[in-house]
Every structure is written in structure tokens, then in C-alpha cells.
């Protein structure tokens, strides 16, 4: 029986960070392989998909691939022009992502490889490429059950929930949690008592909805790009402060949190500091949450 696992191939948010000081964590942009009973599911196609593609070709074992795209920002699709299986006629590759038709998904994927942006277009792909109906609310792939929900990020962005091997995995690489809470705190002047009460309820309800979406997740792979100092400058850019993420994961009784979409400005030492701060919060709250740094080539067993 083949082993089932999750492997991180790209963990950086926004842009690549191929610097000597960053390589323990890794410099590639988002790509996570979820391999269950020999079915290869790929979450996002950032530059991390390039080494994954090369590995798939050298293994010559898996010829059917499903790629889930959280959205179409460059850091999530920029590995596709160099994804070797797409240029190999033995492969069947399916894409799923946010959009209102298959044609729209194709258009978004083709766009980055058109002249004058790239010398080779998707018409050079010889693999069998399919674009799955983006209106379906659930997908089944091998024994995996896949659903999705809307993340807080500019444009339309999905978080994916994958049920596999009696575990729940959530992949939500770009998500600005607690947005309303911070907006309310910033603007909370000049409102009536009734308005203030309703905002408090609205905020609580929104937070409960966010917590419910990730409740009891076994493996949560979540955006944790910003420090509190970063977030002050970049509120509204669509990424989370790690403190908010770890607190939300504790409230949601998540079992394992993987800090993801690391800021490319943060070197290995800084990512370790963020991780230690998260551990401190977990200890203070006496939570059983296990917090990990998502690092390139890190593999998590699903067996």
C-alpha cells in the first residue's frame, strides 16, 4: 500500500525568496502536495510546483493530477509555465479554481503565458488538460472529498477543505482573518448605543463563522505572513497577523497549525521567532494546539 502524506513544495507568500538566509524554511511560492493512496492532489501552482513536477516526471508513477488553485495571483500560478508534466503527453491534468466558467479558468491560466509575458503559450502543453466545472460545490478525487469556502483576500479566493484518511485538512494560503474586528476598533466613534451593540454582535458572529469554518481541523495550513508591526502597515492587503491566526486556531480547537505564506522579508531566524511567539501564546492559553512552521520538503504522514 502506498503511503499517504502531505508535502510542502513552496511556503512563501507574495514572491520567491531564494536567499541563503531563508533556505531552511524555503524560498518557493505556494505549492502543497497531498498524496492519498497514490492520488496526487496539488494545492496551488506557485514556484514550488516546479520541483514537484520534476519529481513526478522522474518517478514516472503518477500520471493523473488534480491542481486546486486558491486564486490567480502570480505567486499561486507562476510555476505553471515550468511545470514539466504539462509538457508531457502521458499526463492528464485537471484544474479547479474560483471562476464562473471553465473558459474563465482557462483564460486566467493562459494569460500569464501569453506574449509579451512569456515565450511559450499553453498551446504548447501536450498533456491532456481539463478545466473542471467551477460551479460544483464539492469534488471527489480518489478517496478525498474536497470542498471550499471564500477567504478574506482581494478578488475571489478559496480556502480548501480536504477530507482524507479520516482527517480534515484545510489549505487556506491567503486569508486576512479578524478584518471586521480591526475595522470596528478603528472606527468605533460617533455611533449610537444600539449601533455599537449591533457591531459587537456582528463582530462576534463573524468571528464565530471563521472559527466554525476551521473547527476541529486536524491539519490547518494557514496564512501567517505578518507580524503585528507589518499588519499595522499592511491591513487590507489580504494576509493575517500570526497572533490572530494562532488565537483563532486555539478557539477552533485545531489540532495542528502549519504557519504558511511566510513573508519573503522574513529570514529563517525571524520565522523561528514567530514560531516561538506562537508557542508562547499556546502555552499561556494552556491549549493542546500543535504549531509548526511549514517548510519546504517537510512531509506529514496521513497514515
Amino acid at each position, binding site marked *: 500500500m502506498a503511503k499517504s502524506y502531505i508535502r510542502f513544495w513552496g511556503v512563501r507568500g507574495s514572491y520567491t525568496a531564494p536567499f541563503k538566509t531563508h533556505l531552511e524554511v524555503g524560498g518557493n511560492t505556494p505549492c502543497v502536495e497531498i498524496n492519498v493512496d497514490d492520488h496526487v492532489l496539488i494545492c496551488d501552482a506557485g514556484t514550488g510546483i516546479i520541483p514537484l513536477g520534476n519529481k513526478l516526471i522522474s518517478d514516472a508513477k503518477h500520471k493523473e493530477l488534480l491542481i486546486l488553485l486558491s486564486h490567480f495571483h502570480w505567486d499561486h500560478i507562476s510555476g505553471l509555465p515550468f511545470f514539466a508534466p504539462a509538457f508531457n503527453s502521458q499526463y492528464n491534468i485537471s484544474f479547479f479554481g474560483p471562476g*464562473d466558467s471553465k473558459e474563465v479558468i482557462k483564460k486566467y491560466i493562459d494569460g500569464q503565458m501569453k506574449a509579451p509575458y512569456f515565450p511559450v503559450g499553453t498551446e504548447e502543453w501536450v498533456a491532456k488538460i481539463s478545466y473542471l466545472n467551477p460551479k460544483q460545490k464539492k469534488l471527489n478525487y480518489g478517496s478525498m472529498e474536497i470542498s471550499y*469556502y471564500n477567504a478574506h483576500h*482581494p*478578488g475571489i479566493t478559496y480556502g480548501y477543505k480536504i477530507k482524507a484518511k479520516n482527517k480534515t485538512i484545510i489549505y487556506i494560503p491567503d486569508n486576512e482573518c479578524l478584518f471586521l474586528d480591526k*475595522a470596528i476598533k478603528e472606527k468605533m466613534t460617533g455611533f449610537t448605543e444600539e*449601533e455599537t451593540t*449591533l457591531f459587537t454582535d456582528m463582530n462576534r458572529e*463573524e468571528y464565530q463563522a471563521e472559527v466554525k469554518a476551521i473547527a476541529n481541523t486536524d491539519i490547518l495550513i494557514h496564512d501567517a505572513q505578518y507580524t503585528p508591526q507589518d499588519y499595522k502597515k499592511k491591513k487590507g492587503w489580504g494576509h493575517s497577523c500570526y497572533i490572530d491566526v494562532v488565537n483563532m486556531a486555539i478557539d477552533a480547537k485545531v489540532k495542528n497549525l502549519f504557519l504558511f505564506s511566510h513573508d519573503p522579508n522574513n529570514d529563517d531566524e525571524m520565522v523561528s521567532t514567530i514560531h516561538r511567539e506562537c508557542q508562547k501564546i499556546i502555552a499561556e492559553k494552556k491549549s493542546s494546539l500543535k504549531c509548526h512552521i511549514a517548510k519546504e520538503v517537510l512531509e506529514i504522514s496521513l497514515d
Partner: protein
Amino acid sequence: MDEYKLTVALVDDNATSRKFFLRSVGNLSIDLKTYKDTDSAMEYLGNNKPSLLFLNIIMPDKNGLMFLKELRKMPLHSDTKVIMITSKDYTQDRTIAFELGALDFIVKPMSMRSITSIMLSYIK
């Protein structure tokens, strides 16, 4: 006597937000129809054109911008007056909303007075 009232629809998964709108409308001569998701809203919007439609952006079942895109493909709603309402103020979302013909963009938290003032300015 609903036939004498103008109809305004709101699609927002946040129950308190729906309550906030209902309280904002108060005694105005407006029939406010509220929906918690796009599926239930579509049951009404499939055959009805409100004077004004408020659409939240981030909802669990469907993103409001995607829903607006679908509505615009329906002849009935090609010119329906739409205002986006959101807790996330992203410039790109504003751009997409305005490209889809949204008239305005309200960011939570907002006062009840601002809601009624926007309603009245767009449906008069």
C-alpha cells in the same frame, strides 16, 4: 400595502447585519427583503427586480462579486442598482464591483443613518 412600497433586497450571511439593515429602514416606506445566502436570494431575484440590491462580498456559499457577475448575465438584472457591502475594503474588490456596474461600496461598520441616506439617494 406592500404594493405601494419600493423593494430593497439585501444578501448577507451575517444575521446581525440583516438586523442592522432592518432597524435602519425603520419607518421608511421600503419593503426590505433580506436573504442569508445567494441560493435563497436567487429564488426571489429569479423573477423579481428590486429597486436596489445590497450584496455582501464574503459569504460562505458564494462570493458576492461572483454572484453579481451571474446576475448581470440575466436580462432582468443587467441594470439592477447594486451596492456592495463588506467588512473588507480591498481596492481590487472596489474595481471589480464598479466594473460590474455596482453603484457604491459600503464598508462595515457603518451608521444606520448612512444606510438610509444611501438607500434614499439611489431609489428616489
